[in-house]
């Protein structure tokens, strides 16, 4: 099962690479994670925050995009515990937990990640969580994970 074991700093085995969209619309988000920063798209024209990133602002239709750094603090908005391994190579690690976290610092936009710690614990919607950055240095990307605030 998935735990933070000594010797392995990854929650899941490195089967599933983080993969910025080929057209590049979310590159800044993934680049920021490597610096251990969370950014969301912010429209330079009207200030609307937006996730997931898109080439234009859905409010004012401006293509002038900027980015806002937001605090790594959030609340669990929803969650699932995965028991059936897909791909099958995840069999060793199941069950594991994926949370959807809303970010009060970013108009409650949501980002998915794993909930670190005991995968069989009870998970509560609304529970406060804080960001943990999982560097995959050899592959050149960083994942955004979450742990419960004690």
């Amino acid at each position: 099962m998935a735990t933070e074991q000594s010797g392995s700093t990854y929650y899941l085995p490195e089967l599933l690479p983080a993969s910025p969209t080929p057209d590049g619309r979310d590159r800044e988000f993934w680049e920021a994670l490597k610096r251990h920063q969370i950014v969301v798209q912010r429209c330079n024209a009207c200030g609307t925050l937006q996730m997931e990133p898109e080439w234009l602002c859905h409010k004012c239709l401006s293509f002038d995009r900027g980015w806002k750094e937001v605090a790594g603090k959030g609340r669990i908005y929803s969650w699932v515990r995965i028991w059936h391994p897909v791909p099958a190579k995840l069999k060793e690690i199941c069950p594991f937990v994926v949370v959807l976290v809303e970010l009060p610092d970013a108009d409650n936009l949501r980002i998915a990640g794993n909930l670190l710690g005991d995968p069989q614990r009870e998970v509560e919607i609304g529970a406060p969580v804080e960001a943990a950055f999982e560097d995959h240095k050899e592959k050149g990307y960083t994942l955004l994970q979450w742990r419960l605030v004690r």
Partner: protein
Amino acid sequence: MEQNTIKDKAAIVGVGESKYYKRGGSPVSEFGLACQAIINAAEDAGIKVTEIDGLASFAMEANEPSRLAGGLGLPELNFCNMAWTGGGGVAAAVANAAAAVVCGYAKYVAVFRALAQGQTFRFGQGTTGPGMAGLMGFTVPYGLTTPAQKIAMRVRRFMHEHKITQDALAAVSMASYHHAQFNPRAVMYGRPLTREAYDQSRWIVEPFHLFDCCMENDGASAVIVTTAERARDLKQKPAYIMAAAQGSDYRDIHDSENVPAFASSNYKHLSRRLYEMAGIEPEDVDVVQSYDHFSGGVVITLAEHGFCAADELMEFCTLDNLTWPNGKLPLNTAGGNLAECYVIGMQLVNEAARQVRGDATCQVKDAEISMMISGSVTTPASNLILHR
């Protein structure tokens, strides 16, 4: 004020299917299954296969129209059309066929879907390759890769907001299995499901047990659509298309985790448009087929079609209410995706038509109005209403 709509201008006049198999069980190819379903639908309608001059499908159907028209020896192909999306496109494909016959592009359109997941791509295997599309990049690295997992995330939030327990999901699953026991075509015919077996089945992804998830099958289903005028002279009682709608809610972007109405099944405005076109209310619907790839999506969908309020679901969504012959709203009366066959929901149209014709295996007494809903926590979605 008179609306200019498709209402009552077209009808389903024939239904057909291949034999339904467990995944990998079909002795013929997916293309062969598609042809068999179309041939059977034409025979049921009492028309010659060669009278079919249009083909409509959805969900990136792989058997393309020129090969089908060639294989079936159609003298003329006058209309071929694919609705965007996956399981949300079933009713939309029927609606496109109806529009085609009413506008005069074609006379008899076969709406069909074939699927042999034993031969091709398995949806349940997720999206993990290097060519992974768009927004999946935000979830796949965390192991959120399959439709079951992504929909579970939305259903979990809905359960939290409306105090829904596992009982409602179990009722949807058990209703499908109950109805499949009367349907010899169903893959799960002869395989009843008890609540104990449901509870003891393994988790796929909480809150979905194994029996909350549809099967993987080999099969094909088809219906023939023509104008109401032609329908009157054919062999079967017509199932008139009373209303149809397709679309998405505001910023309900496929695979996005930032859909504003996240704890939703995506029908809030579609159901309103559907009822307005039909000129009926939810209580006028006698029987419903609702796309059940995952039971939890159906629970939300029933509320979003006005059969009860979201906060009343625990009273409404019970096995007694959802099952033939005595339930208030018999649901998935041939067994649905969960227990008849998973043909991405096309088989639900066949059943919706049979109910208003009067020859369904779990025939709802005096059924006049039958609803078919495709999708459910997918987008774009679609839905339709048939009447006798």
